[in-house]
């Protein structure tokens, strides 16, 4: 079974979002996403300082199988990117919610939680996909 931490928000595109101190958010892809992609071999990261719109392309993750876009769950500015993924993309496989984070952003607006999924909704969403 795929892990779905209780303290995160989720999207239908299988991204997760964590609200950190200071109004910053960390974004990555879910355990379900990494398992579906298979071994990751390359991650294309955005530029620091880049502004990205909600649902805009934020990163590209490439596995042995295919390339997949990662979309930003919010509008905001990229503060930092996980540079380690350039050399060790498989961190996303081994620790998707920890060392495998992808970007930290400063949101443009207050986070509208109604546009994101709770852990329970995301679990239900995955269950429905697998049926």
């Amino acid at each position: 079974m795929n892990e779905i931490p209780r303290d995160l928000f989720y999207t239908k595109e299988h991204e997760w979002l964590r609200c950190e101190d200071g109004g910053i958010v960390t974004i990555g892809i879910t355990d379900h996403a990494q398992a579906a992609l298979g071994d990751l071999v390359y991650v294309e990261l955005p530029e620091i300082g880049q502004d990205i719109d909600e649902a805009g392309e934020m990163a590209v993750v490439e596995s042995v199988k295919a390339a997949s876009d990662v979309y930003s769950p919010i509008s905001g500015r990229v503060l930092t990117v996980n540079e380690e993924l350039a050399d060790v993309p498989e961190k996303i496989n081994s620790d998707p919610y920890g060392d495998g984070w992808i970007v930290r952003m400063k949101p443009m607006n207050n986070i509208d939680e109604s546009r994101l999924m709770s852990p329970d909704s995301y679990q239900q969403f995955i269950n429905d996909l697998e049926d």
Partner: protein
Amino acid sequence: MGSKTILFEKHNEAGARIIDFGGWDMPLHYGSQKQEHQAVRQNAGVFDVSHMTIIDLSGEYVRAFLQYLVANDVAKLQDFGKALYSVMLNADGGVIDDLIIYFISDNNYRLVVNAATRDKDLAWIKNQAKSFNVIVNERDELAMIAVQGPNARQLAVDSIAVEHRDAVLALRPFYSLKAGNMFIARTGYTGEDGWELCMPAAEALEVWDQLISRGVAPCGLGARDTLRLEAAMNLYGADMDESVSPLESGLNWTISWEPIERDFIGRAALEKLRNSPDRRRFVGLLLQDKGVLRNHQKVVVQGIGEGEITSGGFSPSIGRSIALARLPAGDYDRATVEIRGKLLKVRIVKTPFVRNGKIKIDIEG
């Protein structure tokens, strides 16, 4: 729901991710495609290839028939058991399929063709066989297991009936023999040593379990693809199909031009292209930058023209991305590949990329 091999439940029990492949529900991987790949390069892996189509041909004129049906020449098969790789062409010289032909006895040959092309291959072969009085017998009751890797034969030999073990261990590369209920060939699709084992489906269950219990890694179609790509072995439907010539697919070495009297299907079309200055190249590419080459990406050769990647991916052995590509004629060894709007540098390298556990290309340079 697709067709299932006899080993389907074994794959499920082993936690396989199942995908559709040519109408078959097959394992893509059992957790990590990269680990499966490395297991084959360093130790041994086992693949369920029961979805592949086994066809036995028999008849007095079967040799003459094969000399007409395929582009390579079965006259090269002088010893019983010897295998030959070939393409089967249409009249325009396009590739209907690639296959392996095993010389069983004077009037008997075994073909192994691709799963996704089964229907059209059988229809084509049966149609051509009529005038040669050749009997075409599909052996879909047989399962097929490929065990591959430097330690594969050593780990698999105990699954073979005792009285046949010495003979099977003595098999040279690209030879086969019948050992009781099993047909064993020292062939494969990974660039490593190993065997392909054909047997009655029910017996495959036990052989599979035995191999797993001896530490042979179950491997899915994902690893099979990266292994064959590193070995620069063509994949039908990606590197060649009915719209392209084997001469533009890196398969020149499989065409038997001599004797010139031998009239195989597609020969006239090949002759026309053979000495054409416009004949496209089929090459190996090594990506110089980070990123991943993928099928159908555009290759730009500065001042010459454009081509396309036919199969690309990440090479676990090299740690970089590699590809096979069809490119315009010309004398050059650098090109660029368009990935998401950017042109990334690639170098043309002599294939195979990897063979018998060793990297064969110059990575620097």
